[in-house]
């Protein structure tokens, strides 16, 4: 379904829920580690606080640093318009899944450049490592969603979920599981989660994502944080709607939409729990062990496409 109005509602939902998901993950992690942890709503308070703070800009920075937070956030907003959440509709004529992946690439591209902009060593380190990870994980993401596209005969995300929901379990093939596994690893890698990166670290030599944001403060930092929280929810939404969209409404009526909403929230919680569990039970990997896992994701995605043809 191509429905700009529904797309805007769903995008607003994603943006609104983004800090909450991060809050839930942090809370669950805290509980698992027998800490009390900050309140679930803490990310909202953090953002609010950051928006009220003045900021410092590096004297070496250029216009790239200035526009990056807006570009990153804008890319996430546009991507959010293309991802169905509770009903199989999106702003489809705007673009398909390839566009979504390239919007993520846009945000990453600007962020990596902004990290280099101030000339700090940490920025360079973060940028270099982020680009290494993304060079291998982006093709994995593309191949994973291509296998969903091959099964459903469309690359439009709303279309994919529509076909899967209507087709039901007949369409669930090994391809989908392989692709989902690849996409799950990619979600961890792209969103700077353990074992790829530690979102809580402030030890400079191990940071990847945080190192890139080191020079941002105040409102700009708030935008960058918001963009990365949104990105996580977008990845979760894509993971469910491209591979297992069951429960999603196919028409705009009260009952299906309510079921769709509940299904989405449950899935969101499940994913957040999974991430929190992984983060509590694993440690961050050494940088040069990451490629094994990254290529693992790439190969899973590749096998997913292959299995579509062979099986």
């Amino acid at each position, binding site marked *: 379904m191509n429905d700009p109005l529904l797309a805007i509602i769903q995008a607003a939902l994603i943006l609104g829920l983004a800090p909450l998901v991060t809050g839930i993950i942090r809370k669950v992690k805290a509980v698992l580690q027998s800490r009390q942890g900050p309140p679930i709503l803490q990310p909202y308070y953090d953002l609010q606080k950051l928006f009220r703070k003045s900021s410092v800009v590096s004297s070496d920075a250029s216009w790239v640093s200035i526009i990056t937070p807006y570009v990153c956030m804008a890319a996430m907003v546009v991507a959010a318009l293309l991802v169905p959440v509770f009903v199989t509709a999106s702003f489809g*004529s705007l673009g398909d899944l390839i566009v979504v992946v390239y919007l993520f690439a846009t945000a990453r591209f600007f962020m990596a450049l902004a990290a280099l902009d101030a*000339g700090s060593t940490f920025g360079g380190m973060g940028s270099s490592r982020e680009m290494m990870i993304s060079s291998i994980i982006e093709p994995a993401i593309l191949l994973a969603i291509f296998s969903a596209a091959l099964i459903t005969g469309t690359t439009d995300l709303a279309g994919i979920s529509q076909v899967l929901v209507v087709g039901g379990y007949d369409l669930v093939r090994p391809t989908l599981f392989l692709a989902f596994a690849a996409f799950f690893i990619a979600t961890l890698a792209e969103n700077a989660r353990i074992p790829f990166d530690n979102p809580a670290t402030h030890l400079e030599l191990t940071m990847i994502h945080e190192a890139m944001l080191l020079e941002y403060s105040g409102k700009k930092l708030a*935008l960058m944080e918001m963009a990365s929280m949104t990105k996580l929810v977008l990845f979760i939404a894509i993971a469910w709607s491209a591979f297992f969209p069951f429960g999603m409404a196919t028409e705009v009526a009260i009952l299906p939409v309510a079921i769709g909403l509940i299904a989405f929230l449950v899935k969101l919680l499940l994913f957040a729990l999974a991430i929190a569990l992984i983060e509590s039970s694993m440690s961050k990997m050494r940088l040069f062990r990451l490629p094994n896992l990254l290529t693992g994701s*790439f190969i899973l995605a590749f096998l997913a496409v292959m299995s579509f043809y062979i099986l």
Partner: protein
Amino acid sequence: MRALLGDYLFPLMVILALCGGFSAVMLNSRNKACIGVAFGAAAAFSACGIMVAIEVLVEGPLMLSLPITSVIGQLSFGFNIVVDQLSAFFLLVICTLALPVSIYSVGYVKEYEGHYGLGRFGLLFNLFLLSMVLVVTAGNIIVFLIAWELMSLCSYFLVTFESRDTEKASAGLLYLVMTHIGSALIMLALLLLAFQANSFEFSDLKNIGLFMGVDVRSIAFILLLLGFGTKAGIVPLHVWLPKAHPAAPSNISALMSGVMIKTAIYMLIRTYFDFLGINGPGDAWLGLLFLLIASISALIGVLYALVEKDIKRILAFSSIENVGIILIAFGAAMVFKAYGLNELAALALIATLLHVFFHSLFKGLLFLGAGSILHATGTRNLEKLGGLSHRMKVTSVLFFVGVLSIVAIPPFNGFVSEWLIFQSLLLSFSLNDVLVNLLVATALGMLALTGALAATCFVRFYGMAFLARPRSREAAEAKEVPRSMLLGMAVLAALCLLTGLLSTYIIPTVDQVTAPLVGTSIAGRLAGGLVLQTPVSSFSSMSPILISIVLLVALPSIYLIATRYGGRRSERVGDTWDCGTPLSERNEYTPTGFTQPLKRVFNGFYHSKTSTSIETGSDPYLRKLSFETSIPEVFEDYLYRPIAKIVTGLARKGGVIQTGSIQAYLAYIFVILLILLVIFR
């Protein structure tokens, strides 16, 4: 008989190029006049070329011939020019790039004043443009071969223009050798076709493949692949490209990378689709061969671009990568055509042509930008650049547009062509041959990997050249380049954005070009209003213009919300966080350091050699540490050197008979004569 403007404009173009070139030589000593005449003529030439191309695309083909006919054997031929739709498209591509490059050159060649002859440059520049135009408009094999040779020679002399630099001279020599090996293969292949058709005229060669034996046809296919592949720069025939393109003056590099290598793509499309024809599943192997070679070529190109330090060599390797991407689409078009899926073949061929066009725009822009960096700093070494965005503000913005296009950021033009290529590869699922499906899927994976690596490559390029602090005095003292150079780049930057946004309006024209080649027109379904969609119903759709509208709404609203929410807050300028130690350019990440992680990941490919040495002097606390890393040139070392060794070895062996004594030579002649008399008695 229709009266076409082109009937007059095309001869005018030839006159302009020749007059402009030769008057530049006459005015050699008067710098200003020489530059004005040479590049004024070139700009007028390109403007006429654009008009001719557009007229042909709208009105239909143009035919011209000089009243000269010659005879070779029993075959007569004239000096025929035929501008059909395909030629017109490439004419448009060449001239659209040539116009801004001519403007740019006005400022750029000033640095040659007093060092090298400007007149010679003007002549070669004009002849180079003319030869490229003749290559894509030649109406028969003879005209084509003459133009092809002229193009190779002009570009050779331009590559070695800075002749006092011995490295450039040797790069030129390698180029000359490689290009002539290619020319020999092309000549062989085209003569094979000519004998089959008993004519040199391209019009008689149409669909000649139908009348050829399978073996001869396959040989022709392979010869053309190798011949034109050398010019296009597919791995492993690419070795000349990363040496010759950087050696040439930057405006010439822009033309060579932007359009010269595309003339090979033109001839591949012309010979494969027009002459030999792709008929039936028996020809699918050829498409698959292209997919394989092209995807390897793209990946290897980008892997080398990642670790290169010379800014122009990075761009040259990136051209190898992009030619790979173009040929992936071309291979897909062949596979689809072979299986009779003409609509998908049309989609893939449209994607091929669009990427040809778009790549010429952004690679032209990037090479001009690299030229500006070279002009301003005098160095091509990325390790010595940095911080140029503060000193060259306009250049940094224009160059950024080129970078956004090449890494396929929506809605810039590179994204549109890449999206179409992805779609055409994905749609291969409608083929019912598992092996073909798997191979296409492999190409898809390689293409995705290539795209992601290219993004890293250009983050490194832009970040290291334009951002942070200068890494050398040259970079710290850089000044903005002259207006004419900025104008040339600005035109290309505007085109990069506009062609992406308005791609739905360009596609119907491109469809007209491909329709006669694949036998079906898909414009109606591919580009509907603002939205691009695949010809297979509801497979996917994308609208570059809508994306940019939404972005244009989102960006200012986010800015407004961010500044309003929480009240206006002050913004201080401070130092970069430095952990308390004063930050200098030595703390910055270097280009080598930036891709070191990736180099380690792909070290199975690079086989890089590193060595660390520690020198202790008289003071036990002060030691000198040096670190060195190098990447062997695999193709040169393991492929070309052994061949060159064998060839020179054989030549030396053969040299035994060259004794230098006249009696021996007379004896040779006598023996040969005897043998000939015995054979042909």
